[in-house]
């Protein structure tokens, strides 16, 4: 099958090459898809991670922006007069938990301040840090990095511009670092969590502005030199097995920083999730390669199969030719067999018909001879009467011959009923029938114990009668005939022997005595037609048995019949041709 496909399309080598190329291309494509999908999955994860940092930064910036926007108007009202009330500033600072509160004019001179405005604050103002400069330049609001307050506690400087009829003014507030840090940390907590991820806000120097974690306190320096160094270099990236992103918060020198272990961040594309597809890929690759190897072997065996198939086909063709020849011979044999069966049947039929047709004129000869004798005997000469008597005698013997032949040929066609025949009973009956002959001969018949046999009773009777009568008939002169009938049986076979003390049979006649019409003696010595023993043999053979004899000439003979105990009828003619009524009736 493989062979025929390979032969009809491509040579095995080309087929194999194409297969290898296809498999390799499929493997490379598969690997490419895997790599790119993994890469894009990582990109997606990083982006999402980063986006949330951006969102946090924008949220924080917008909180300050909106607060500052609304405060601008109020501040202009509160501190827009010619004089800035120190009391109002003090009250306001107190209300808003500011460390201090002061107002600058456009040139940066202090117009008024709350009690918390210390020399340190004034020095800071005088130094004109960027968050003051930006406010003076008109930026709505600006925040400082983490500063150290009077008591060393962290502090942020918040500056805000507002316009008055006297020109631009700047509100500067000292914000409690921890309060602000806690407020910002609260907004950071709302972010979706990544396992072992950290988020915090730092200022430009790397000092913590806000952190939801207790491990990092506001004002503390981030104790993570590699991270700080990386933050200086880029906004996001990888440090060892961590990933980080940072996002500046508008209006401040702060940045929202997020870090996460790669294993957590890329959990969905790492471990089994990462290696699973590659394991599948490996399995696929191995299967494909194994398939190739198998294919190679199959192709090879296909070539071998092709050759074997070709040999088989030629052998088959040869066999088919032989089979046809055999079938022809068989047909011929069958025909011959049928012909033989037919000719056999026809022969039997002819024997029967011929016998009957012969019998008719014979009967007429006898009858008219009888009529002649009866009517005209006195008119006939002595010689004519003798002729007439001889003629009648000859006709009578012919009648006997025909009767014998008829009964013999009838044996071939008749399928007698099968019955359990008790041979000893049968033998006693036969002896009874022969009583006259026994008495005439002055002899006797001795019956031993005989078995029973499954056979046709009529034929068994005929068999015994013929053998016993023969024993009586072929007696020696002056010796009273004694016929002994004995039988034995075993599991399968029944044996009946009939012995006599008669003239015996010379062994050279052994082949002939069972033939029809075979006579060893002139009719003048022993009467008979020569059919008796032929009938015996036919009966024995019809029952699947056999007949044989042993003899010592001048002392006697023993005829032995063996029959299967459960005899099966052996058809002498094909069964379907038996019991044809035309073959039976005269």
């Amino acid at each position: 099958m493989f062979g025929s496909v390979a032969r009809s399309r491509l040579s095995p080598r080309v087929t194999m090459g194409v297969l290898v190329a296809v498999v390799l291309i499929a493997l490379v494509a598969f690997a490419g898809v895997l790599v790119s999908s993994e890469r894009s999955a990582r990109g997606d994860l990083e982006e999402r991670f980063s986006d949330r940092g951006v969102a946090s930064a924008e949220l924080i910036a917008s909180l300050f922006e909106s607060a500052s926007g609304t405060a601008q108007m109020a501040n202009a009202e509160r501190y827009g007069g010619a004089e800035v009330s120190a009391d109002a500033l003090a009250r306001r600072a107190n209300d808003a938990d500011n460390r201090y509160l002061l107002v600058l004019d456009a040139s940066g001179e202090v117009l008024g301040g709350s009690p918390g405005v210390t020399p340190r604050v004034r020095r800071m103002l005088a130094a004109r840090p960027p968050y003051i400069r930006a406010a003076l330049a008109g930026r709505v609001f600006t925040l400082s990095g983490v500063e150290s307050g009077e008591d060393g506690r962290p502090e942020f400087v918040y500056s805000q511009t507002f316009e008055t009829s006297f020109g631009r003014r700047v509100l500067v507030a000292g914000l409690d670092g921890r309060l602000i840090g806690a407020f910002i940390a609260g907004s950071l907590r709302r972010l979706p969590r990544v396992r072992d991820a950290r988020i915090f806000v730092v200022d430009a120097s790397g000092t913590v502005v806000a952190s939801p974690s207790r491990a990092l306190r506001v004002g503390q320096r981030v104790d993570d030199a590699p991270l700080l160094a990386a933050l200086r270099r880029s906004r996001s990236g990888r440090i060892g097995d961590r990933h980080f992103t940072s996002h500046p918060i508008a209006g401040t020198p702060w940045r929202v920083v997020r870090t996460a272990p790669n294993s957590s961040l890329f959990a969905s594309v790492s471990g089994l999730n990462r290696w699973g597809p590659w394991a599948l890929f490996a399995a696929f690759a191995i299967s494909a390669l194994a398939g190739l190897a198998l294919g190679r072997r199959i192709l090879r065996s296909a070539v071998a199969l092709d050759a074997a198939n070709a040999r088989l086909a030629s052998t088959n063709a040869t066999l088919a030719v032989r089979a046809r020849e055999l079938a022809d011979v068989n047909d011929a044999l069958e025909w011959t067999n049928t012909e033989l069966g037919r000719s056999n049947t026809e022969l039997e039929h002819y024997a029967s018909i011929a016998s009957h047709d012969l019998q008719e004129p014979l009967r007429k000869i006898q009858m008219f001879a009888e009529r002649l004798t009866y009517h005209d005997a006195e008119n006939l000469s002595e010689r004519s009467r003798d002729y007439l008597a001889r003629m009648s005698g000859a006709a009578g013997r012919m009648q006997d011959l025909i009767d014998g032949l008829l009964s013999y040929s009838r044996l071939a066609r008749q399928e007698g009923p099968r019955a359990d025949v008790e041979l000893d009973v049968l033998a006693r009956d036969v002896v009874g029938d022969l009583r006259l002959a026994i008495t005439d001969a002055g002899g006797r018949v001795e019956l031993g114990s005989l078995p029973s046999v499954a056979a046709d009773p009529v034929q068994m009777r005929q068999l015994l009668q013929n053998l016993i009568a023969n024993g009586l008939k072929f007696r020696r002169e002056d010796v009273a005939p004694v016929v002994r009938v004995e039988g034995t049986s075993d599991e399968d076979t029944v044996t009946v022997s009939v012995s006599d003390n008669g003239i015996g049979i010379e062994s050279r006649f052994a082949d002939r005595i069972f033939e029809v019409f075979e006579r060893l003696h002139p009719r003048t010595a022993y009467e008979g037609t020569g059919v008796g023993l032929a009938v015996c043999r036919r009966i024995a053979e019809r029952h699947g048995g056999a007949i044989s004899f042993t003899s010592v000439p001048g002392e006697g003979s023993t005829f032995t019949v063996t029959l299967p105990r459960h005899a099966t009828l052996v058809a002498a003619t094909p069964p379907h041709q038996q019991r044809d009524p035309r073959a039976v009736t005269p």
Partner: protein
Amino acid sequence: MPSRPKREPLILLADDDEDDRQLTSEALGEAQVSSELRCVKDGEELLDYLCRRGDYGPGGRDATPPGVILLDLNMPRMDGREALSKIKSDPDLRRIPVVVLTTSRAEEDIVRSYELGANSFITKPPTFTGLVEVARGFARYWLEVAELPEPRPV
């Protein structure tokens, strides 16, 4: 012998063999059977006779119904078996006794004849003396001992 008030029954012999017809006729004569014997040559003629058709039809030859039929089995045209079968399956003819008289001694013929409804089966003896004996026995039984139905034209 009781006197028979009825007409002597007719014996109808069906046999194709002229010799046999003559011998049977002579044997019946020898046995001093007084009944008339008529002969037909085969089964068809037998049925023509019995059914009064053909040569035996109206205006044809006399076809007095027989008291008993002697029937040979092997005849040309229609053999004895077929004739027997036809007679015994005919509601009017079946009452006529049929005695098969044949040379056959075959068991098959005997069984078959009785199966077809033969009233008796006799094998032709090989000698004339035997035939006379048979004729005497036949006549004694069928014409004297047995009561026959009144012959009735069909």
